[in-house]
């Protein structure tokens, strides 16, 4: 039992002479409600992803995966649903429903499977058991149960994410190095050009970008998704700002020792810029994993679909495969969720400091 002093000691960090007041209570109430709105849909969906197809179809509002208990009749055959029979005198018994008979139902008691009898249907309540269905996950991945080629999509998404991130890091770091550590004619103009690309809304150049990508023969190729995404102006800026803070003397010393420019970049600059590279890497992974519009335009054959495309197509196709759809949604959000759980601090501070997404 919590007394009120415990309660305020728990929440109330002493704020001047005020202590814990009603505005604090309001603040925590706001936060708790907010968290419910943010997290409940995701958690509910994740828990529901192990519900049976039937439970999802009948729209059971209980959060845990319940199914009706089933029993195989003594003479074999189709499994029968189990009900709890409440008699008028209050006794309770578990029965299996054999067949409905108008307002009555033909049942037998589980304890005496060979004696069937009729009871009013009103006296029966369904007996449910807790039963998670992990085959929702295994069927579309390692089984052949559905049209959802999870492993293929997962591989495509991983390939796009990894290759695009590596190329983004390399090209952006090279450009940032040139723009932060060299003085050359046209440098300011190039910086300005890169600023200008920030202002080009990607949704506005869909048609010409598509035509360009197609003319390179990259239509329906994962490279058509990867290459246009590689040169991110935000990435160049992030890295350039960081590299400007690294003293030139370090590079000069290496030059004195006869290191080539490439070696200075690779062996000195990149290791020193590791914190900024890490932030860009995290952002790039999330961007590319979650990309939807551009892959939707470039990739039209299911062989080259990314997870996001597969998922959205699967959603449009059928409604009775909800159990697979939810399970695959969980698998799709799992990687970014894990990245977020472990690197949460870097992501939020990185975005707060640079203001990019």
């Amino acid at each position, binding site marked *: 039992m919590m007394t009120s002093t415990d309660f305020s000691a728990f929440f109330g*960090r002493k704020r001047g002479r005020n202590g814990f007041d009603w505005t*604090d209570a309001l*603040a925590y109430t706001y*936060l708790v409600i907010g*968290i419910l709105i943010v*997290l409940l*849909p*995701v958690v509910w969906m994740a828990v*529901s992803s192990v519900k049976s197809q039937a439970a999802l179809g009948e*729209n059971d*509002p209980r959060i845990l995966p319940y199914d009706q208990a089933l029993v195989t009749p003594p003479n074999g055959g189709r499994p029968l649903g189990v009900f709890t029979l409440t008699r008028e005198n209050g006794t309770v018994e578990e029965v299996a429903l054999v067949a409905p008979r108008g307002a009555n139902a033909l049942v037998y008691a589980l304890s005496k499977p060979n004696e069937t009898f009729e009871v009013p249907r009103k006296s029966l309540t369904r007996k449910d058991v807790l039963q998670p269905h992990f085959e929702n996950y295994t069927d579309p991945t390692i089984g052949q149960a559905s049209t959802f080629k999870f492993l293929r999509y997962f591989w495509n998404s991983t390939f796009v994410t990894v290759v695009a991130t590596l190329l983004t890091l390399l*090209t952006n770091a*090279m*450009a940032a190095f*040139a*723009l932060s550590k060299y003085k*050359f004619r046209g440098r300011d103009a190039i910086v300005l*050009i*890169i600023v200008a*690309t920030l*202002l080009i*809304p990607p*949704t*506005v*150049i*869909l*048609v*010409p970008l598509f*035509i*360009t990508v197609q003319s390179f023969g990259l239509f329906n190729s994962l490279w058509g998704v990867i*290459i*246009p995404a590689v*040169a991110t*102006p935000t990435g160049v800026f992030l890295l350039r700002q960081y590299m400007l803070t690294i003293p030139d003397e*370090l590079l000069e*010393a290496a*030059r004195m020792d006869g*290191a*080539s*420019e*490439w070696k200075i970049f*690779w*062996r*000195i600059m990149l*290791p020193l810029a590791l914190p900024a590279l890490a932030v860009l890497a995290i952002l790039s992974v999330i961007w590319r994993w*979650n990309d*939807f519009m551009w892959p939707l*335009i470039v990739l039209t054959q299911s062989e080259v679909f990314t997870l*996001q495309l597969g998922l*959205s197509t699967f*959603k449009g196709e059928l409604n009775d495969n909800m159990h697979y*759809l*939810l399970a695959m949604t969980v698998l799709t*959000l799992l990687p*970014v*969720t894990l990245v977020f759980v472990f690197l*949460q601090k870097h*992501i939020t501070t990185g*975005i707060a400091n640079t203001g990019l*997404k």
Partner: protein
Amino acid sequence: MANMPQTKETGSPFRLLGLAWALLGDVLDPVFRAIQKHIGAHRMAYVFLLPNLLVFGLFSFWPMVLNFYIAFTGGTSTLLAERPFVGLENFRELLACPDYFDPKTCPVAGYSFWTSLWNTLFFALLQVPIMIVVALATALVLNRDIRARGFWRAIFFYPVMLSPVVIAVIWDWILKRRGILNALLSDAVDGWNAFVKTPVFTLAFAFVIGVVVASLLRAVLPKGWRARMRSPLHIGVLMALAAFGMTMFGSPPQFPALVLADFRPINWLVDGRSGWPMFWAIFVYTWGHLGFYMLILLAGLQAIPRDLYEAAEMDGTPKWRQLWRITLPLLTPTMIVVVVLSLIRAFQVFDEIYVLTGGGPGQATKMIVQHIYETAFTGDAKRYGVAAASSVLVAGILMLLTMLQLVSTKKKAGG
């Protein structure tokens, strides 16, 4: 310093990684060394810039120029040479409307364009203020001296990590006709109706009525009367006791007016006659993006010097006045960035809503980017020219918004 990656911890995986790193660089070194010998050290900058500028040029700048050209061509070919020049025909098809506010009067392409443009404007003008108010409220709450700020901040930010498709699938599942929301609302209505009939409700209702009426009376009555009155809490308890007596010795009161009608499931995303599809489009998009703006605003709040508040505290300035006189004025630069950024983003909304509603029911939630996408890439006739012309018009609107940002930031900086 040149051996940075090779940490001194022998046998650590980082050492191996560092060695591999160094090796990879050394393998590439002869190539770049040869180039350097050829062009000189200081021109290596151009070499470093080349890959990035190549991609920028080919996939950002060239398409931008190309867009204008395509906007003046017709046909369905992707080969530029096979696209006939049609002059302003595409623009005419989009703009030749007797009445822009009634897109039904337009040609086919114009109908789609103006419908989705008005939808987008409606969406953006409603979504942006709502989101900013909620994001600011959340940031203000998180800026207080609260426990575990990092934890709360992370949870609010989490939906930003999720892909639009995942967000749409989750909310579609919740909002289906036989979905969780309808089930919960139905349960809530049933629960309320059962609760209204219980004596507990009668007591609680009498108590609340007593407190509210007494408080109102206190506010209205002249001073002398007020002093003679008992406190509202007292009166509430008395009312509850009276209600208890009535339930014990008389007929329990019924409240037929408070019994709700049975809940009929709503087709949240499909019912075209209601405003629900657009409501949920705004809600779901806000749900997914709020955390980002909350984070930016929180960073802006934390940059405000603490001693300003301490000084105000010394002067006995009330909290709400501190909010209006210190917090909000100093937050203005961040606020401008947030408003313009969210406006530009909201104008380009596509992913979430396309997967959630497909633009439906009918065209109720079709946004301008979906119009461009569908005109160019779906259907039998791929009308690249019309789509490109639409893009030009949209780019104009976005340019206007960006100008707005530049002007308002300049004004702030100047003033």
